[in-house]
Structures are given as C-alpha cells and as structure tokens.
C-alpha cells in the first residue's frame, strides 16, 4: 500500500535517529526530504506546502530542541500531523433510524463504484442486514449487467431496468421498492462522471433531492495524482459528500491522494478497497495508515511504554552501576523484569522501526523466565560477585532453578559479555542507556 513512501521516510528518519540533538538545519533538511517524499507520493502540492509548514512551526521550537530525543520528537510531530490530516477516528457508515438507509456512490469513471457497491452490499449482508443494490449507471455499456452479475454472486437483489432512461426516477423508485420488500440498506451505483460535467453533476443533485440519501460516498482511485484535490473539491461542493472509499489500494501506488482528498473535503475515509475480489473491502484506520506511511510500526507506543517503565531515577541508578562497573546480577534481573513488564516481547520487537518488515519473528519468552529463575537461585553474594560461582555452585543453581548446568554456564557467559559491553560503552561520549540493552 504505502510501502514506497514508507521506505522514503525510513531513510530520512534513520538519519535523524542517529543524532543526539537536532539543529535547525537538520529539521530543515528533513523537511525538504519529507516534502519531496510526499510530492512523489502524489500528495497535492498545496497540501504538502501546508503540511510542511505545520511541521516546521512545531519542529523548530523549544520542545524539540530541549527534548532528550529530538529525532523521536520530529517523528512524533510528523506522525501526529499525518494522523490529524487523515482523520482522528475510524468512521463507519451511518445508518438511518428509519430504514432503509440509502447510500449513494459517486465518483469519476473507472474509480471502482460498481465493484465497491457490491463489496459494501456483501459486508452489510454479512452483518445480518438486508441490502439492495440499484443499477443507476445508465451510461456505461453493460454496467447494469455487471451489477446484476455481482448481485447474483453475493445473493443480493439488484434493482434495475434496461428500459429506464432517467437515473433520477430509477433511484426514487428503488427506494419505494426497498420499503415494500423490507430492505434496510439501499446502495445506489451511479454512473461515473467528470466533476466538471455540469449536466451530469446536476443529475446527481436531482437524485440527491429525490432520494435524500443518508450517506453520499465519494469513491476515489488510490492512484490518483495531483488532480485529486480538484475532483474531490468539486464533488464535495456540488453534491456534498459524507465519506470516502479509496479503491485499488492493493497496487504499489503511494496513496498520497488520501491526504489530498481529506484535506480539501474534511471528510473521513470509511473503507479501502484492497483487491478485485468481492470480499476485499477493509475499514480505514487513520492511525494505522499514518504509522504505515512513516514506516515505523507503533514507535510512539514503544516510546511511551519505555518511558513509563524506565523512569528517570532508576535510569540514573543503572547508569551509576555501569559507570562504577558494579553492574551485578541484581541489576540484570531488574532490567529483564522491566523489559518483560513492557508487554509480550514479540509485540515489542514488532514496534521497533524496521523490524515490522521482518517476518516470523519469534522470541522465546521462556528463555527470559529461565534466565530469571537462574538468577533467583543464586545467593545474594553470588549475585554481587559472579566470580564466586564455581562448579558445585553451578550445579546447585541449576537444580534450584530447574535448569541444567549448561544453561547456567550460558547465562554466566552472557552476563560477562554484557559487562564487557558496558565497559566499552562507558568510555564513549554521549552514551545513552537504553541502547546498551540487547534490543
């Protein structure tokens, strides 16, 4: 879906992440790259301009410069702005208190209205409702046949007439028919039209006046370029839209049209089409897509969790232990417990940027439990001074923790390794705590 933009921003943020403190020119440089990436992703020129300005105002401020992790701060700002643009909540189709709920699909030719109509009908049917499709596209050759076939495929009735000449009358009739047949959802598949075609746009207005649809859904192609703003603005101003369905999201389009359309209409994206098959319609989650655009999994969640878990005081204590080279098995156990308290490690790892691309990450939580058990079976003295742990003590620890001597040996070896690493870090300037740890 948004992979390509994701990759782009990934490279940008890799550069940002490597720095301790962000300077103004770093932010400027990042903004230039964000701007280009967004333009390449087909986000409209003006939308990008506004977006970058917002980020600039927020990024080159005290918050960023005084923050401990400015790189993360910029990421957070970009992510927040993206989320804000994409809409804060996932908004479903509104149902009318007096059925039937009439949903009118409008859009350009070839945006995918007919396929989407059938997909929506299938979804409502699955929810136990009684949808009806209306073949109101009297323009395109065989559009009626197409909807009738799709209706048959999902066993949903299709109101149609090959003799009809006015989609306005047909749509009005269809709602009557739906009432008679106790259908609670009516989906109008209107003909594709250009937003500047006055006569066809006024036809849509007439349908709207006659049918009073509960929801007017603008169906847009995810591959749309810069013109997305003109198209969406025209449909919204002339007809008034309640929501958007973005189609063909299964290709490699960067999907910047989503940002463009939302920013000119201020209406939510309700669903995304992710394939030609009739079940391929998914709800749209702005936060997910924004994270996806940024290619960082749920980094913010990770940061928050880490902040909650490692409070400043404890961090200082640990830092002191490292500086004194007095990092003991007690300290190691504390750290292990903290990491585990952040939630399932597999989820944690997936939240780490870049890691979400790696498939099938499996972390054996049991390994951590084992290490903890081994540390627990040591005496206080042993925990403070590992060199005490000779062969017989190892056997005792193994029995006490329900493990084997090789297990104990491995933990000892790892501990020595960590100590050695810490010693190395100690000498480095600008050394930061969390990075010391295995992940």
């Amino acid at each position, binding site marked *: 879906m948004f992979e390509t933009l994701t990759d782009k921003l990934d490279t940008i943020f890799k550069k940002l992440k490597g720095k301790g403190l962000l300077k103004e020119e770093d932010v400027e*440089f990042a903004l*230039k*790259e964000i701007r*280009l990436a967004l*333009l*390449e*992703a*087909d986000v*409209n*020129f003006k939308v990008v301009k506004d977006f970058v300005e917002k980020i600039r105002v927020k990024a080159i401020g005290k918050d960023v410069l005084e923050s401990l992790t400015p790189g993360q701060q910029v990421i957070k700002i970009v992510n927040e702005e993206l989320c804000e643009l994409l809409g804060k909540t996932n908004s479903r189709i509104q149902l009318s208190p007096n059925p039937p709920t009439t949903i009118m699909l409008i859009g*350009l*030719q*070839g*945006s*995918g209205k007919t396929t989407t109509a059938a997909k929506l009908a299938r979804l409502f049917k699955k929810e136990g409702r009684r949808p009806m499709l209306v073949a109101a596209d009297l*323009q*395109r*050759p*065989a*559009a009626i*046949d*197409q*909807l*009738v*076939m*799709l209706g048959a*495929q999902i066993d949903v009735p299709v109101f149609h007439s090959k003799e009809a000449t006015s989609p306005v009358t047909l749509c009005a009739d269809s709602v009557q028919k739906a009432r008679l047949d106790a259908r609670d959802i009516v989906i109008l598949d209107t003909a594709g039209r*250009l*937003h*500047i075609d006055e006569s066809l746009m006024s036809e849509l207005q007439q349908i709207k006046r006659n049918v009073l649809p509960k929801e007017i859904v603008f169906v847009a*192609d995810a*591959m*749309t*370029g*810069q*013109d*997305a703003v*003109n*198209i969406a603005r025209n449909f919204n101003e002339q007809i008034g839209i309640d929501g958007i369905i973005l189609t*063909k999201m*299964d*290709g*490699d*389009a*960067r999907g*910047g*049209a989503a940002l463009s359309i939302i920013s000119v209409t201020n209406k939510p994206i309700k669903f995304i089409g992710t394939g*030609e098959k009739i079940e391929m319609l998914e709800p749209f989650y702005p936060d997910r897509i924004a994270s996806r655009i940024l290619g960082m999994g749920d980094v913010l969640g990770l940061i928050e969790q880490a902040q909650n878990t490692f409070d400043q005081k404890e961090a200082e204590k640990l830092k002191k232990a490292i500086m004194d080279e007095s990092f003991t098995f007690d300290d190691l156990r504390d750290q292990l417990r903290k990491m585990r308290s952040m939630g399932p490690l597999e989820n944690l790892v997936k939240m780490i940027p870049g890691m979400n691309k790696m498939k099938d990450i499996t972390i054996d939580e049991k390994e951590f439990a084992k290490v903890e058990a081994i540390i627990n079976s040591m005496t206080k003295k042993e925990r403070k001074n590992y060199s005490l742990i000779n062969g017989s003590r190892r056997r005792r620890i193994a029995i006490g923790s329900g493990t084997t001597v090789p297990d104990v040996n491995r933990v000892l070896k790892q501990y020595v390794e960590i100590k050695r690493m810490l010693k190395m870090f100690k000498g480095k300037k600008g050394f930061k705590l969390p990075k010391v740890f295995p992940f």
Partner: protein
Amino acid sequence: MGFFDRVKESLSKAGFDRLKEGLTKTRQGFVDKVETIFTGRKIDEVALEEFEETLIVSDIGTTAATGIMIRLREKARIGDVTDVNSVKALLKNEMTDILGESQPILVHGTKPFVILAIGVNGVGKTTTIGKLASRFRSQGKSVLLAAGDTFRAAGIEQLEIWAKRADTQFVQHQKDSDPAAVAFDAVKAAQSRGIDVVIIDTAGRLHTKSNLMEELKKVKRSIEKAMPGAPQEVLLVVDATTGQNALSQAKLFNEAVGVTGIALTKLDGTAKGGIVVAIRKSLGIPVRLIGVGEGIDDLRDFDPREFVEALFS
C-alpha cells in the same frame, strides 16, 4: 550521486546565494526594468516557485520537475532567461523535445494488424477500443474485436455493445475462459476472414500482480503463435488522472509484454496527464492517442505541441 543529494546540492545555501546574486544583477540595470515593462513579469523566487507548482501539479513528477527547475535556476542566474514569458517558451520547448514528434498508430504490413490493449483497472480500455474501432471503420477498414476481458462481470457484454455501435466483427468465449485462447481464436478468425484490424481487449490488472502479468504474457505469446510478428501494437491505456503510479505501470507492463504506445484517457477533465512526459523520458514510449470524452468520436491522435500548451494553460 543520488537524487536527494542532487536536490540537496541544488537547494544548498551556496546555490541560493548564487541565484540571488544572479537575480540582483539582472534587477539592477535600467534596461532590464524597461524590458520588464515590455515583456511582462520578471523572474524572481515567487515566479520560480509558481513554475515549480505548475510542473508538479501537472503530475510530471518530482524527478523531472526538479531537473527542470535546476536548469531553469541556472539559466536565470546567467541571465539567459529574464522574464516569465521566455521561461514559458523555454519550458514548452523542453517538454515538446522530450515528447518528440506525433506518432499515430499506422496500420501497415500483412493483414491483420493486431492491437493488444492493456492497462490497470478502470482506465478506459474497453471504451478506448470501441472508439478506436469506430475510427478504423470510418476509414473503411474491417475490424474484429476480441473480448479478452473474461474476468470482470459483464466485461464481454460491454465490448459487445461497442462492437455493435462501431459495426465490427466480434469474437468471444465464455466468462472466466482463458483470454489467451480468445486472442488466438480472434487472430486466426481475422486471418481466415481477411480482416484489416484486430483489437484485443484484456481484463484490467494491477501491474504488481505477478500472476495476472504472467497471464498477459501468455496472451501475447498466443497471439505470436497465431501470427508471427503480431501484435504489431501493444497499447497501454493510461488514465490522465493517475499520478506517479503511471510510471510504475508503464515500467512493469513494458517489462512483461513490451509496450509500443500509450493511449491517454480522460483528458477532458482537469487532470493534465503530465506523467506521460516522465514515461516518455524514462522508457521512450510514445503517446499515440488521447481520449477526450465518452462519445464514440472522442479519440484523437496525440499532438505534443497541443498537449504541452495545455500543460501550461
């Protein structure tokens, strides 16, 4: 040097200073001021940004737009261009050069002339075929349409209606049958009936679906089998509303079946279709036809000058 590096360099402080310096110089002379009055607006940072916007909003892509802007800033610096009109003329020339001469589809050689129409979903393949068929008919050629979109509901019916409208012959199989077989039969039928032009429709497919691209390769192979040298034209239909993704479409379709020409549809809207400039530049594929409406006659030969004129209107 990577793309970003180049951009960075061009946008670097030194670059800006150089540009500013150049602009100040050109602003100084009295002659220049007079010139401004007679030739229109002077080139300044605002004007340059407006040009960049025009370029990007036309969908020609950031790579092309950035490249053009770098050259433009350089020309502004050395004083080659001073006012808005001369910049426009320069840009138009540059675009027209990239697009090359008009290259319409010319039916030639051994009968039948086979055209394979391909593209992603919803770009207007079937409509374009209908219009193209009608145009050949009006030139007195015999035409056969092949219903190769066996996947989409009513894909066959849609083409059949166009075949009737344009008064052409029509070859179809059942829905969900092998499109390669349809194509093979169509070419064979055209050969035995002495038809001039065969146009084969295909199901819309996203260029990233490898199984569907394999299917398309098979269609092409079966056409070659039925008639060596065919298809003489592999026409990629591109929606003018599409953004940068059209370049990816052209690349992958070209890799799969070798695209020989592009039909740019839906140019009657507000989209400029500038991405064809990028396609022409990176892949060398010419635009042959443009679609400017739903009517049967709304298909024209592509005229690079007219197109470029529209980009800057």
